[in-house]
Structures are given as C-alpha cells and as structure tokens.
C-alpha cells in the first residue's frame, strides 16, 4: 500500500467509525442478534466486519444504549439486542447531528 493509499485508508476508517455506531443504532430499533444484524446492515449497503460489529454491540450495551437477552431460536441460543430507552434518545440526537452535518457538507460542495 502506498503512502497516499494508507493515508486515505486511515481517513476513511476515521470517517466510518462514527457512522457505524449510528448505523447500528438505526438498525437496532428492531431486535436482532449479531449475525442477522450484520446481514441486515450489509443488505442496506453498510458492510461491517464481524470483528468490529460484535465487540461494538457489547460496548454500546455497556454504555446503556442497548439491551440484550439470550433466547433460543432455531434450536440455538442467541443474544438479541435492541435499543434501550436511553439508546432511542441518543439515536434521535445523533441522527439530528448527522443530518446537520450532511446538510452542511452538501452546502459546502
């Protein structure tokens, strides 16, 4: 990887980092377990590596934005996540921030 490509990759990852959280929160307005969440996000054009998504879910839960419960589905125990009450509130605020940024960037371009 050249220096320019490396720089681009770092900036791209930096740009994506905050967006991923917003995407996950948006998708978890409906309940999902890790793998179906990943598939749902990918189906909407937001590919997330499993090594990023699964730990992110735990962090968001530890921060009180998600709730989870273990439940059996298809004869297998799975951990299902959804937005908590605080998560809904934070998501709404982040979404507004996102829209403001989007508008600002659009105005700039």
């Amino acid at each position: 990887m050249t220096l320019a490509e490396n720089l681009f990759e770092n900036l791209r990852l930096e740009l994506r980092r905050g967006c991923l959280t917003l995407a996950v929160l948006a998708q978890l307005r409906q309940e999902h377990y890790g793998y179906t969440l990943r598939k749902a996000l990918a189906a909407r054009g937001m590919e997330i590596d499993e090594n990023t998504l699964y730990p992110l879910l735990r962090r968001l839960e530890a921060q009180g934005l998600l709730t989870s419960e273990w439940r059996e589905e298809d004869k297998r125990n799975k951990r299902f996540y959804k937005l908590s009450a605080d998560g809904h509130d934070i998501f709404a605020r982040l979404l507004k921030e996102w829209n403001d940024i989007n508008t600002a960037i659009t105005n700039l371009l």
Partner: protein
Amino acid sequence: MEMLDRYLQAVRRHLPWRREDDIIAELRANLEAQLEDKEAELGHKLTGAEVEAWLKQLGSPIQVAARYQPQQYLIGPALFPIYRFLLRMVMGWCAVIYTIASTVEIVSRGLGPDASVRAVVQLPWVLFINAAVFTLIFAILERTGIKVPEKFVQGAAIGNEWPQAAVSSHLAQLDGRKKPKTYLQAVLELVVGWIVLVWLLLVPHYPFLLMGPGAIYLKVTPFELAPVWWTFYWCVVVLNMMELAWCIIDLLQDRWQDRHPRRHMIKQALDLLPLLIVLAAPGRVLFALKNPADTAHAATLAQINMWTYRGFAVIAAITILQLAWTLGRMGVETYRRRLAAQ
C-alpha cells in the same frame, strides 16, 4: 465444527476471564449461523480446507479477542502531551548533567580519549534508563488517572461548558493571574517533590547521585567539605519537607487548585536561608584540607573557598532580586485591584 471449536478455544485464551463464557457463547452462535449460511449458499457442507480458509479470514484469535478488551494505553491522549513536554525537558537536563559530570571526571582525573569515547557511548544508555523510569512514573499516573479520570482531565466532565472555561482562563491570564492548578499538576508536584526528597536524603550516602561519575573525585581530592555544608544540607531537606507537607495538605483539603501566591513568596524568602547559612560560614571557609598539615594545597584551597563563596553570593543576589520582583508584582496587583474596586 471441530475446527471452529478449536478456533473459539484459542480466542477464549485471550479474553477477559470474567466475560469469556458469555463472549464465546455469543461468538459461537454468530459464527455457526454464518457458517450455515455459507453452506446453504454453496449447496454443500464446507470441507476442512474451506473452513480453515474462512477462519483465517476472520482473523487471528488474538486479534479477535483484543477487540473485546477495553482500549488500553500506557500513556493516554490526556497525559501524553504533558509527558512528551516533560520527557524532552528531563532528557535535556540529563544530557547536560551527564556531560558536565563526565567532563569533570575526565579533566580532574586526567583520563585519556578512551574515557571520552566511553562517556559518549554511554550517553544513550543513561538517557534510555532515565526515559524508562520517567515513562514508568507516567504509566502509573495513567493507571491512577483511569480510576479518577474527572480529576485528571479537568473540564472533561464539564461537557458543553468548555468554551466558558476557556474564555475564563484566557481572561484570567489577561488579568495577570495564572490558571488554577489541575489535579494532575498537584499530584505531579507531590510525586516530583517526593522523588527530590528521597534523592536528597540519599545524596550523603551515595554522592554519585549528585555528582555522577565525578563522585570518585571526592575520594582522591585533598579537600573536604566544611561543617557548614551539613547545616546547609539539613536546611534544604527541611524546606523540601515543608513544601511536600503543603502539597499533601492541599490535596487532602481539596485545595490543590489554589496557586497560593503568598505561600510562593514565603517559599522564595525561605529559599534564601540555606544561601545565607553558607554566606555566614565562619571565616568564609567552605572547604578544608583533609590533612591540615598539607601546605602544598593551601593556596588552591583559598582560591576554591573564595570562588565558591562568590558563586553563592551571586546566587543569593539573584534570589533576592526574584523575591523583590515577586513582591513588586504582588504590590502592583493589590494596587490594581484596589483601583478596580473603587
């Protein structure tokens, strides 16, 4: 499945032990579902080689487990700028002290070019060891800071109030006053004060701590310190202890933010004491001959005494000027406030 089990077992070894069962159970459910999807997509059960390729694609077990660990820093972003600034300063001073000490040793003992080369070669090691100790101190501070982050990063918990804090701080500077001390600065002062005190107490037993390799010179020189130096030494120790006690009291009373300008002035005045002790030495004798009958070094001794005495007189004059400057500034500040109040 056996290969997946082995993979998960390898991941488990690097997970935080309290949550490992929970994390592995979740990871297993997700990966098994992913595997089933893959098999359904391909229309056949994955072969050993295909499972192996898929697991390799997931990443090494250490990398996978590391994502579940909290982000850890040896020295985090809050402390790092202070660490970098102080490290540069410490390294600079180390290099200067080491160079002076080595030069003194080489010149006084008449050592050849070999000794000079050896001293230059050893310099990186001296710097490396000092940097390592300094880094260790900051790593400990970082660990402590993680436990009480709101005290270390002042304003981090304030959230939206930061512009006001910044404006107030700017105004305070314009106002001629310094910013309030942070908890980190107060703790650093205490740590540094403690290190200095320990260093001071060790110096009489280990003179190389003060003079470096030049300490050997003390053994071979025909001169010895006059008794006045012991009074000077204990005065310095007591002053350091007093300052350390002030730091501890401030921390215990949660008054570490205060700058205590009056106390600073008192300290400056007290700093004059050890200098005055030396200047008041009977007969201005600061060094004496180990062997009083040794007349060969009497002239050199007189010169050493004279120049040391003059050196201390200059230092005392500078300290008095500093004290006068501080007093003057305090006076102007009081006058300004009085005018502002009218």
